[in-house]
């Protein structure tokens, strides 16, 4: 299979292999070369073997074979005359890891084109036949024609101009758009009592609250509320549906601005079954001992030491798979949270242990970036309530499925103020719980990064049918085009058909000439089902040892370290750096290398999060790993 001129350009640094038998005297063109995309398979099956003498595609193009080459022969210097060997020195540089070096614009220079590009612009040389011809052209003239002829060289020029402009307008002050103040109240004990109240650091929950919560929802037939302290982490629980912060707005403050009161040390955990005992959203069980099923301290998970107010909601038989079922379970649980919110509103200011001010800046003159978060929108538990009245609440919000899954712009502060209530899909390890959005690390890091101008966070649902996926994806493309950003980061949770729209979102943005980084759990089990040429800047959220959905809550979700990698990658790409091609198989070391590159650039260490090996192993996980 021969390759095209475009492929040859893209793979100028890859090994050159003849695709068929060619006689001595052939001048090598792209059509004489094998596609590097299939080298891995050929190498694995032993049909192909490279050594240090194998030339690259850039080196052999235009050279003349002096020996007959059989099909699938790695081409070496002794087979040619007229080789393009001057690329040698720069070859290494291009293959360097680029993450974390946003200014390394020189890496885009593709020297391979230099000898062939002299015929662009003014200077045209055509030699029909000849031997030992030496051409000497003054360097300034050559440089001129190279810049005109080689698009890559042109890009470097533009980047340099852009960099100069940036230094000139760097003085522009950051523009403060809005602030959000989070007042933290510490709770150390949760008990049942006659009325819901907070005294000091003790939260008392009305003991007869559950029946009222049940009554509030037609589909809910029963509910139990448990208080789980750290001493009870080793107890059995139904599948964890969601983890939510307890927070409320002060007075008439709108979500994303003004004051929010939040309880530290306690979270609400939603679990549920239907009357037949089937878990809500049941697709195989992941229930079990809490401490074996939770990856502590993830953005979306409980922190170790948190007290859980755990609801177990029973919904009508057979409704566990229909849209109203999971929503009813969440709404009934929120009935309890709302009662706590109401007492939190009345609490004395003197009990605030920490005041945190979050500021949304726009940074004129910096590279404009947008974050796109793809959320589930296939229905039932694959749904999210957007912009409820209360942080992480339900009331006042709209399900993204009802909003047609179309792109919706939220301010970073609306996200961090609980603007998304996740009904959370299947796949405990990779789903983003409600608490995840409240502490979304990518939004936090991007908002606080002085090197970029984060303009918005766009949420886009993932519908079921492909035509709907492309419908929303095209709207995303138009939205991003209108925003006129230089870079975008697209994230998605979990894996499955949402990877089809994930790929399409990246394509829609990439085809408009913007740099785009994709973030997803992929590794082994979540490998992407589709791809396109714009999916070159990818960050894998996997943390599990085996690269699988390990049934440990939040294990493979987006963490700070992933956010920093993605931002480093995006900034490098916007600065003009190239990215290395992917390895054929999942290799966790790529992540570590990139993290080290980011650390070098930042000049500080990034704490690596733990994975499932840090928690007691459940028997089922043990047996899963045993077979690997």
């Amino acid at each position, binding site marked *: 299979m021969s390759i095209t001129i475009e492929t040859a350009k893209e793979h100028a640094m890859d090994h050159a292999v003849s695709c068929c038998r060619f006689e001595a005297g052939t001048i090598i063109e792209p059509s004489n070369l094998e596609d590097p995309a299939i080298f891995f398979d050929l190498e694995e099956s032993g049909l192909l073997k490279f050594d240090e003498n194998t030339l690259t595609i850039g080196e052999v193009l235009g050279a003349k074979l002096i020996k007959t080459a059989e099909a699938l022969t790695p081409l070496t210097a002794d087979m040619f005359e007229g080789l393009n060997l001057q690329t040698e020195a720069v070859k290494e540089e291009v293959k360097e890891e680029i993450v974390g070096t946003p200014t390394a614009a020189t890496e885009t220079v593709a020297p391979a084109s230099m000898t062939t590009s002299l015929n662009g612009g003014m200077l045209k040389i055509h030699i029909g036949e000849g031997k030992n011809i030496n051409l000497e052209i003054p360097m300034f003239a050559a440089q001129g024609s190279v810049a005109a002829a080689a698009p890559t060289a042109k890009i470097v020029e533009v980047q340099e101009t852009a960099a100069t402009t940036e230094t000139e307008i760097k003085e522009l002050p950051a523009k403060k758009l809005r602030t959000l103040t989070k007042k933290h109240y510490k709770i150390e004990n949760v008990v049942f009592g006659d009325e819901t109240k907070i005294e000091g650091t003790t939260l008392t929950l009305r003991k007869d609250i559950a029946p009222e919560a049940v009554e509030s929802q037609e589909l809910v037939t029963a509910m139990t509320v448990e208080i789980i302290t750290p001493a009870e982490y080793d107890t059995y629980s139904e599948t964890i549906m969601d983890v939510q912060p307890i927070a409320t707005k002060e007075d008439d403050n709108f979500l994303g601005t003004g004051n929010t009161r939040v309880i530290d040390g306690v979270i609400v955990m939603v679990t549920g*079954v239907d*009357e*037949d*005992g*089937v878990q809500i*959203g049941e*697709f195989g*069980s992941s*229930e*079990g001992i809490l401490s074996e099923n939770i990856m502590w301290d993830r953005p979306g998970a409980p922190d170790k030491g948190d007290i859980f107010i755990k609801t177990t909601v029973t919904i009508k038989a057979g409704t*566990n*798979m*229909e*849209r109203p079922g*999971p929503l009813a379970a969440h709404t009934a649980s929120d009935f309890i949270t709302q009662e706590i919110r109401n007492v939190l509103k009345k609490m004395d200011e003197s009990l605030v242990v920490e005041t945190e001010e979050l500021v949304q800046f726009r940074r004129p003159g910096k590279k404009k970036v947008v974050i796109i978060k793809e959320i*589930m929108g*296939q*229905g*039932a*538990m*694959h749904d999210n309530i957007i912009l409820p009245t209360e942080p992480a609440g339900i009331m006042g919000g709209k399900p993204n499925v009802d909003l047609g899954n179309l792109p919706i712009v939220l301010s970073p502060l609306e996200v961090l103020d609980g603007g998304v209530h996740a009904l959370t*899909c*299947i796949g405990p390890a990779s789903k983003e719980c409600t608490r995840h959005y409240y502490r979304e690390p990518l939004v936090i890091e991007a908002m606080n990064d002085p090197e970029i101008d984060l303009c918005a966070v766009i949420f886009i649902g*993932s519908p*079921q*049918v*492909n*035509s709907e996926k492309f419908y929303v994806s095209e709207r995303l493309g138009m939205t991003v085009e209108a925003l006129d950003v230089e870079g975008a980061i697209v994230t998605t949770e*979990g894996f*499955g*058909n*949402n990877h*089809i729209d994930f790929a399409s979102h990246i394509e829609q943005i990439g085809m408009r000439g913007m740099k785009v980084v994709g973030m997803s759990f992929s590794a082994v089990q979540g490998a992407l*089902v589709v791809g396109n040429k714009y999916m070159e800047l990818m960050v894998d959220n996997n943390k599990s040892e085996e690269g699988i959905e390990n049934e440990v809550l939040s294990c493979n979700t987006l963490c700070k370290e992933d956010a920093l990698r993605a931002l480093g990658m995006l900034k490098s790409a916007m600065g003009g750096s190239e990215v290395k091609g992917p390895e054929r198989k999942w290799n966790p070391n790529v992540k570590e290398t990139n993290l080290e590159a980011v650390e070098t650039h930042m000049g500080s260490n990034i704490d690596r999060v733990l994975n499932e090996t840090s928690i007691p192993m*459940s*028997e*089922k996980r043990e*047996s899963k790993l*045993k*077979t690997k």
Partner: protein
Amino acid sequence: MKYGDRLIKMQGIIVHISDGGVAMDLKGRLGHLTVPMRMLITDYDLKVGQEVEFNMSFPEVMSGEVNQKYVSNIEKNKRGGK
């Protein structure tokens, strides 16, 4: 897995659709499969009676041991979650 790469083309019929997932019978009386919406790829609005196809291999039993945790979960489910 010993036989993981022996892919066999399977066909099936969608027999039940809920908001959360899709159930399908495998043609040739070869079994039944239920998957979450997220794991099914479609160009068309879903309807009962539509045919599906996919490649799969044979499920292989991983070891002779049973996993007590799963056994207890299964028994609990049989008792209606009690």
